[in-house]
């Protein structure tokens, strides 16, 4: 696992979210935006809790999906970086 696997994401304090039957609804009041994430994105959002590292999230994903760890980490980091760009998560 690379150094990027040690990074720990957390939901940004400006968001509010819930998981509805496996689909994450994320509200950012400051932008007046409501987003619905796809199933994999929703699962990653659910696993982001401010204490799990990317590597730990990837371990969970590889146990739940038929995916190799490298691909899972790449996908997870791409999504988390995109979420960070939108100020939906922060890196602890």
């Amino acid at each position, binding site marked *: 696992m690379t150094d990027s696997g040690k990074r720990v994401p957390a939901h940004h304090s400006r*968001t509010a*979210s819930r998981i*509805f039957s496996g689909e*994450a609804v994320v509200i950012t*009041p400051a932008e007046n935006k*409501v987003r619905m994430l796809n199933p994999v994105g929703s699962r990653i959002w659910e696993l982001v809790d401010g204490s799990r590292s990317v590597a730990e999230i990837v371990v969970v994903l590889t146990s739940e999906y038929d995916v190799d760890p490298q691909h899972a980490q790449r996908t997870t980091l791409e999504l988390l970086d995109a979420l960070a760009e939108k100020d939906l998560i922060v890196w602890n």
Partner: protein
Amino acid sequence: MIPVAPLTLDVGGIVVAVAAPDPWRPRLAARYADFLSSGAAGWHVAVRAGWHAEPKRRSFVEHGETWTRFGYADFGGWLDLAGRQAIVALASDEHLLPALERMLVYLLTQALPQDAGGLLLHASGVMRQGQAHVFVGPSGAGKSTVARLASGYGQVLCDENIVLRLGAAGPEAVSTPFWGQATPETAARLRLSAPLSALYALQHASTFSLTPLTPAQAVLVLIDSLRIAVEQPARASAWLAAAKNLLAQVPVYRLSFRPTTELWDFLANPHSAQPMP
């Protein structure tokens, strides 16, 4: 001077004491007769004269972490969510009812999720055979139309705002006194509630059809109908928590409909609907 006791209203289980000058009390008491309560008020609203709109900001709604304030040409208000109190000021007597109702809608929208796990929806509701059908959608989607179509087919709970909450027997729809302007002659303003049969997101069409929505899709529809509920992260979180509890127990559909009373037969037996020739 003898202090005047406020009128106490119960809307959807939120009990609000409304203090107003003596001359306005009869109008308020008449308007909200069926919603008067002897319960202990958890919120206090004072209504007074003396609103002067800011010339450069005639219309605004602003939200802080613990407050909402709004202003229009004829009235304005301040809602202190932490202190559970509000003030509404009017430019003249004729704006008493719209001003107070605007404040009460803002108050209930934000108080219901936190205090009672409920939601105030921009929706119409119709009670048929003891079950409530609730119709949501943006302006023009057909909420008032559906309420008009209920004449002779059911009891309209309200044509503009409905409370959803968890009752002892499950989700229920509760009437509010906040009716729309479309059909003032039909506004009953009765305090009613019924077990919730389903929520419908309205869509005009030439035929009738029902498409199930996932809970997340349903949330998007409900939020779009009343964005003020989610203007701050803490309030958005409370709103989502209440929505999650309610939507886990309520079917939600996209309802395509044409504005005829066939609607009620269709909802009673949606699988028998025939496409238009």
